[in-house]
């Protein structure tokens, strides 16, 4: 009875403090003329976006601009998750390779990448690597593919399902499919950085599978690759998946560093919006909400996956 009373009192105290702070916040926001309002979302944005997966122009409202930013964020997060998982799994498994060189390369990669701040890496990828690409007619050209300073251009079906190749028009490359260097630099940075952490999670998961499993598989005549895929990985996944979850969430949050390399993500659009409308509190609330929802979604999916790979009683 006593512990319950103590807990109830503590809970009540927390509630009172929160209510006091919230009440004060609202009162002071009202006094400062900053009370939350959302009608500005319908006003024309008046700024253009460098890239958008949904049709957008400056005369369209703020909410559409923010939505375009959100879609861009999701784009880089989804592609980044897939890329980081693939690269991380390969590097993590390589730690168990019998090939000494491969093993050392994998270790050095992990140690190098995870000990340098991500922001520095993004600036490096964008300003040093991607912006050093040649431009215009000097761009790297392969059949159907052009890699220039402004982005990666791919041949694809254009209007009326006509096959179109990348072509130079007044010094600017045009192609039906295009990825900008800003997207490329952010994606590369996120994938390379997150993969190093995922590699460690994968390595830990594989190491957790008893050595006897490998030996038993070998005695049954399985090749090392088949052993890894059929016997070790299914058991290792139980350890790997919970660890992956936090890496995935980190990747989603780190995507907001896109401003460092000029990519038009949600954060970048929100910042422009904030400066033009002065609605700091509302914009920050929207930002917080969006990243929270993205991360909770990733968490929910990973928890589902986690439940699927756990041992089941049959």
């Amino acid at each position, binding site marked *: 009875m006593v512990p319950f009373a103590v807990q109830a009192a503590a809970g009540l105290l927390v509630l009172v403090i929160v209510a006091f702070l919230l009440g*004060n916040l609202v009162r002071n926001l009202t006094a400062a003329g900053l009370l939350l309002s959302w009608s500005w979302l319908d006003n024309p944005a008046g700024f253009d976006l460098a890239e958008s997966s949904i049709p957008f122009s400056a005369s369209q409202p703020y909410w559409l601009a923010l939505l375009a930013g959100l879609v861009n964020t999701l784009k880089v997060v989804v592609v980044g998750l897939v890329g980081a998982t693939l690269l991380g799994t390969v590097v993590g498994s390589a730690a168990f390779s019998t090939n000494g060189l491969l093993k050392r390369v994998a270790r050095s990669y992990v140690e190098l990448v995870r000990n340098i701040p991500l922001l520095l890496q993004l600036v490096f990828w964008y300003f040093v690597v991607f912006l050093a690409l040649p431009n215009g007619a000097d761009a790297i050209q392969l059949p159907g593919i052009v890699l220039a300073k402004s982005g990666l251009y791919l041949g694809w079906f254009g209007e009326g399902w006509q096959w179109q190749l990348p072509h130079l028009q007044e010094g*600017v490359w045009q192609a039906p499919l295009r990825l900008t260097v800003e997207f490329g630099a952010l994606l590369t940075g996120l994938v390379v950085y997150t993969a190093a952490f995922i590699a460690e999670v994968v390595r830990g998961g594989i190491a957790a599978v008893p050595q006897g499993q490998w030996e038993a598989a070998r005695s049954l005549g399985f090749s090392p690759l088949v052993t890894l895929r059929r016997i070790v990985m299914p058991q290792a996944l139980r350890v790997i998946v919970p660890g992956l979850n936090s890496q995935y969430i980190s990747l989603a949050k780190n995507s907001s560093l896109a401003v*460092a390399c000029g990519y038009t993500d949600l954060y970048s659009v929100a910042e422009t919006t904030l400066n033009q409308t002065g609605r700091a509190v509302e914009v920050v609330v929207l930002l917080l909400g969006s990243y929270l929802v993205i991360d909770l979604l990733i968490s929910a999916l990973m928890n589902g996956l986690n439940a699927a790979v756990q041992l089941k009683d049959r």
Partner: protein
Amino acid sequence: MVGFRRLAAVLPVLTSLALVGCASDGGGVQSQKIATIKGRGTLVCGVDGKLPGFSFVKPDGSYSGLDVDVCKAVAAALFGDPAKVDYRDLNSSERFAALASGEVDLLSRNTTLTLSRDASGGNGLSFAPTTFYDGQGVMVPASSGIQSLKDLAGKPICVESGTTTELNLADRMREINAPYTPLKFQTGDQTYAAYLQGRCVAVTSDRSQLAAKRTSFPIPAAHTLLPDVLSKEPLTPATVNADPAWADAVRWTIYSLMQAEELGITQANVTAKVAEAKANPNLADLRRFLGVEGDFGKQLGLPPDFVVKAISAVGNYGEVFERNVGSGSKLNLERGLNRQWKEGGLIYSPPFR
């Protein structure tokens, strides 16, 4: 982390609003801000910090520039000492939150005066007199062959996010019906780095800023300004709306530099002018302006001789201009619109009466 800087800048506002009770003082001449600054002993001034001519850190670590001289003049008016300033480097997107949260007392950071920034329903700033009348321009590599805005159709243009420049560019390009790609960066450094790396064929900003940045490029002569002027950019120091008395003190300190130029009072002759005013009771205008008689200082919550202190610290407006951005500087900008009104410019101080 850059990504959370915005948040970091806004959170203190929320926290302070949440923690501070319903403190409402009755208004009047007494300024909470001036009391705070005097208690602290230094003026905290938000500047750019990376813009030659306006605010720039010299190799010895000291700040210089037109925007910096405004801070110095206000500090001199308050304390009699232009050195009592703490400078905070702010980027375009941090500046308003820093001012609103009280992190800086005065924003003297090549900020354009606009309706939405001034209005209580917008950013809610209180603007001082404009210290530099500018216009937005576009810089391109001299070798690019680009002659006007129309030539930029379909091309990427670098712009700093959170600036009026970004909006003006969108408006002008829409007017001439030229689609373009705006590449936005959070800091000026990133914007100009991307331009110099050749990611954009043009970079747009205030013409004075472009001219200033160009002086620090590897080969300044390889870049030219297009003749197009995209907008009016009155660059103006600002304070928060909430403290009108503090805003007045800043406003009239800046006006005093402009008035001093009109009256021919300079850093060199200000002491002589004070002596002259003291000796001759008939020079009523001059006596009031220099605080020899009357109570202008007291009305503003400043010392009686604040005008003398400000002029002794930085000189009159013309001297400040020429030293930092005019003929006495690398920028070598024309006075242009920034001449005194008697010479056809826009620099006009209301009467000190």
